[in-house]
């Protein structure tokens, strides 16, 4: 046992007492929900991944029109046919705070927040999950994004930075920082003593700031303390060796891939996510596959315009055709991700059984920013208590006039109660987040609960 390290922890203890700092505790048995089945209780690791597709879809081609079990997958969704037993396409969900707010929809996709001049975003559901899973994994969560902006927002409503280069993300997770263990420990200790000095300084300010600035100082203290907790956690993990990745896979993942080769890029990222789950580096991942303003084109299949330009198609048949091709292409890569999860063993099942994957957009009909009835697909997680096999259609209310009268349903929710937050809440609960409500949720989504 390293005596010095103990001293350091002891010296620093008093900084952890502050309000708002909850050192995450390991999950206790009593926290497993009462209604969990025996199989659910046996699950060792619960995982979630959220994947965002920018600018909605070509709704005319995408929309599944039959509700329930006998539904037919539409053209852009055909690649998912083989996963039918493990997916649930959902229609009719929306974020009430997103309606009419154009491209804010990515910002609030996982938060359900209200954004305006004076409103800050709120915590995203993946970060609530990460609070529960963090003590068990080396990384509390992984944020990926091919064009920069992440989907994850911390409890202060601040966007977490995301990594766009698969190689960098790979190295952060699987390569030991340079210099060997002793020097790493020294580096962490050094950071510890610098943090001591900084926090000590900040405390002298603490009592003297006004209301408006108080928020900013709290933000500062929380941020520095969180870095301190992370430093300690890193110190703890130092004794646990990182998993060895076989050379062939390493070569494939430890590299940057150009967005000009979108398929290769997406599959590399998906492989990286699978590996991070398989090795239990993290249990919560968000992946933004494109920004609302510039979602990537797909040069390899001849779709040269970005998704934003395609979605503002102006009724042009050629553009609509290419939008559908881009949709189908992106969904096919997601299908590849499900393949990979399904072929990777986990306990007596596969990763797909213990991983909930949410795929979709915060936009439905991009041409004029319609963001009701969002394209959403929920997959996997059967051992966490999800059931699949149906098209859950919240638009199918008794007054619904069918999908022929298309456009309007993408602007005004048919069913005001069908909120995306309900689904996010349901997923959070399956991750054992002790929550009864998330953002503006009204209920859980019983349709996907086993």
């Amino acid at each position: 046992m390293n005596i010095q390290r103990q001293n350091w922890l002891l010296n620093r203890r008093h900084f952890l007492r502050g309000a708002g700092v909850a050192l995450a505790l390991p999950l206790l048995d009593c926290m497993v929900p009462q209604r969990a089945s025996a199989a659910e209780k046996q699950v060792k690791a619960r995982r979630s991944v959220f994947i965002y597709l920018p600018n909605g879809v070509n709704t005319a081609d995408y929309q599944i029109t039959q509700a329930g079990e006998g539904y037919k997958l539409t053209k852009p969704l055909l690649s998912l046919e083989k996963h039918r037993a493990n997916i649930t396409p959902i229609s009719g969900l929306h974020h009430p705070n997103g309606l009419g707010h154009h491209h804010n929809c990515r910002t609030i996709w996982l938060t359900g927040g209200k954004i305006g001049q004076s409103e800050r975003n709120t915590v995203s559901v993946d970060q609530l999950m990460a609070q529960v899973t963090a003590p068990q994994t080396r990384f509390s969560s992984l944020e990926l994004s091919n064009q920069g902006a992440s989907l994850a927002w911390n409890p202060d409503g601040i966007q977490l930075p995301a990594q766009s280069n698969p190689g960098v993300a790979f190295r952060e997770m699987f390569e030991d920082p340079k210099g060997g263990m002793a020097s790493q420990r020294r580096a962490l200790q050094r950071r510890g003593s610098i943090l001591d000095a900084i926090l000590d300084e900040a405390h002298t300010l603490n009592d003297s700031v006004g209301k408006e600035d108080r928020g900013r100082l709290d933000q500062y203290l929380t941020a520095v303390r969180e870095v301190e907790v992370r430093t300690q956690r890193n110190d703890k993990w130092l004794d646990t060796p990182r998993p060895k990745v076989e050379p062939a896979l390493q070569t494939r993942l430890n590299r940057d891939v150009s967005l000009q080769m979108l398929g290769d890029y997406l599959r590399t990222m998906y492989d990286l996510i699978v590996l991070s789950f398989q090795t239990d580096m993290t249990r919560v991942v968000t992946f933004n596959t494109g920004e609302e303003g510039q979602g990537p084109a797909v040069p390899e299949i001849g779709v040269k315009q970005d998704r934003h330009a395609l979605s503002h198609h102006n009724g042009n048949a050629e553009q609509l055709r290419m939008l559908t091709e881009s949709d189908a292409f992106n969904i096919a890569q997601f299908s590849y991700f499900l393949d990979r999860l399904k072929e990777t063993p986990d306990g007596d099942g596969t990763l797909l059984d213990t991983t909930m994957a949410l795929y979709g957009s915060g936009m439905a009909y991009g041409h004029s920013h319609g963001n009701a009835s969002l394209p959403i697909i929920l997959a996997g997680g059967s051992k966490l208590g999800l059931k699949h096999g149906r098209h859950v259609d919240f638009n199918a209310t008794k007054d619904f006039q069918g999908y022929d009268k298309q456009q309007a349903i993408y602007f005004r929710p048919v069913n005001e109660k069908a909120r995306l937050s309900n689904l996010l809440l349901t997923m959070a609960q399956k991750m054992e987040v002790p929550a009864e409500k998330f953002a503006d949720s009204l209920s859980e989504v019983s349709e996907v609960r086993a």
Partner: protein
Amino acid sequence: MKRALSLALLCGFSARLHAAEQVAFAQAAQPFLNQNCARCHDNKVQKGNFRIDTLKPDFADLGTAQRWAEVITRMNAGEMPPPKEPQPTPEELGRVVDWIAARIKEGEAARMAKRGPVAHYRLSRDEYANTIYDLLGVYYDVTQPGAFNEEPRWHGFERIGSMLSLSPSHVERYFNAADIILERAFPEKPLTPGKGRADAIEMRHRETRKRIEALGIADKVRAPLWPEGSAPAWRSYFYNNLKEPGLYKARVQLSGLPGLNGRAPHLSVWNAKLKRSIFDADILAPEDKPTTVEFEVFLDMPSELDFLNVVSPIFVRDGNHTLNVLNQGGGIFTSSKDVGLLNPTGYKLTTEEGRAIYPLLLVDWVEWQGPLTSEADLQKRAGFWPEKPDDMAQARQCLQRFASRAWRRPASDGEIDRYVKIIETELAAGEKFRGAYKAALTGILTSNNFYYLAEGSPTERRDKVNDWELASRLSYFLWSSLPDGELLQAAQNGTLHTPEVLRAQLARMMADPKIKRFTEAFPRQWLQLHKVGMFAPDEKLYPDYDKWLEKSMVLETTGYFNEVFTKNLSIREFLASDWTMANPRLAQHYKLPPLPDGVLQRIGLKPDDHRGGLLTQAAILSLTSDGTRHRPVHRGVWVSEALFGKTPPPPPPNVEPIEPTPAQSPKATVRAQLEAHATNNNCASCHKKIDPLGFAFDNFDAIGRWRTEEVVPTGQGANPPVNASGTLPDGRAYNGPDEFKQLLLADLDRFAPAFVENLSTFALRRAMTLDDEAQIKAIAQASKKENYKMKALIENLVLSELFQKR
């Protein structure tokens, strides 16, 4: 019924408001509001998403006071009640407006008192980079992957205190950055500069060098770069002796032949890791008289750089083997006179006469030298590192010097104690002195004192900034960086705030080369130039568009601002002018005569050119378009915000979208579609004010080219003619952009305060409120005497009460 209800609501917040105020409100304003406003703004109907019955008469609250100010502005302007509604008498209206205005004024002191004794403003990432450079002479690229994220913007401004939040990731990134920066500033071993050279054979024919040498043409080989072609400029295997990150100087010899269409080839040096160009220039040099270009750039190692010829794509990208043919290394280029070694099935690069068919670059060689450290940069670090290791007294002095400089104010002994303790702890843990001392420096750079600008004292209430804070305000306003020695000296003397000293310092600062940071950053943020290229123009509709054009557009606008500043012209030039800034690419885009050399230069304009002022610059016209079409409404909103400081209310949620013209209908302009759409009264009331400001520019397409008919992709018949006429809300009519600009010139006195407001927002790092309005007007008023000259406006702002108000 209505009255009973609003009274009930009034009672709801009586606990917070004094009874006397409430009674006064109920007597002086309530009846008028109930009678004239509540009809459309109560619990039943909320036109414009606004309710008057729940707007509390709480004038001590800034947000509420702002809303009341908006209410009386609308009533004063005659907008409310709307003309078709029953009207109050002017006396009734005047009385209520005066009463509310007086209460707003009274509330000012209370609103000021509510503010905290200390305010913190985080440095933006650009400011962080500048501050580090001016502090230590170290380049740190804040935009590289894994460094800092883009800052959130408020109306284009990247440095608004309330927007720049802090998360744990930020703190971790500050730590990482500090480690890298300090290692560069105080390296363990001094850097050893070296030289490297790569010729065209190295770039194109590495594997066959021996064969080429045997042919005896080794000194003649050139690397041809056709449109979108590339050649490696830096590979780690090129220069085995250049391994250390640092500042490098490059010299490139090359020729640049314009294509048959007159377009100059464009050299761009692309950094693959940063995914951006680090050097750009149009190259014009005959084949037999190559030119040499030089530039300095900071390189992180390992680096990968390419020379690109960036002009709009000429070859189809796929379904065509052209690019492959051209990219093959097989063909060897020596001269347009001797093409025997070129690939016989490849595309022709030159005519029989030796003229380039497409804009063509011919690269001969590149030389690199570095890493370079200038004497000036070394000088910046002097005194921050102790000469004698293990001498704690000296270490303390150095820390004190460093902290006082980095924190932009004297650091106290008590503060330095904490950092001395870091050294002690580190030494006790077995660290060597160098590492221990560096840890203390890291602490100083990761302290909130460094990356926050703090204003105010915890122990006393101050309404003005002190001289140290004033020095930082000035330097971050004009230099986006920390104060220099002279400014700090003036602060130390306690004289900075006196008008003479302030004026002298300002003049000195405006003459310093660092002012370029202001003349680039301010127009970029004020005019929201980050939006240029955000929606990439459709390749089919705008085949002539390319990345260099996009960059040139932004260069024109920031260069234009720089010209107005440097020559101290009137801000009237922003509205209309007979000159602009252009480079050859832009001149061609504007159909102006070709320019003699490759740089951005001031050029005169004729009335027929239809350019001049900001509004007809391609950057502005394209940032208000969406990549396929121009957007008149967006253009109108932009004019309203950027020129008049008014943000129109956002459209209500769930507006029915405009459907595209069906293929069988006649072609219609965007304007015609909008007008057919704006039949709804609710929409019309706002659009009447916004749209005329945008229709004036219908003569310009989505990338800013002049036109007289609008190209409509769908529908039947001929393209419709452009209608760029309109009537402003105040009744003045115009026909076309040139007449519109004349109307704007008549409104110069309205533009000036809006410009001051933008300048103040940038300088003071916060949104201007109602409490700043009077001072903003006074600054504009004072500058009118000086014909609204740019430097007069800046000086009047800096010398104003507003600038020193906390």
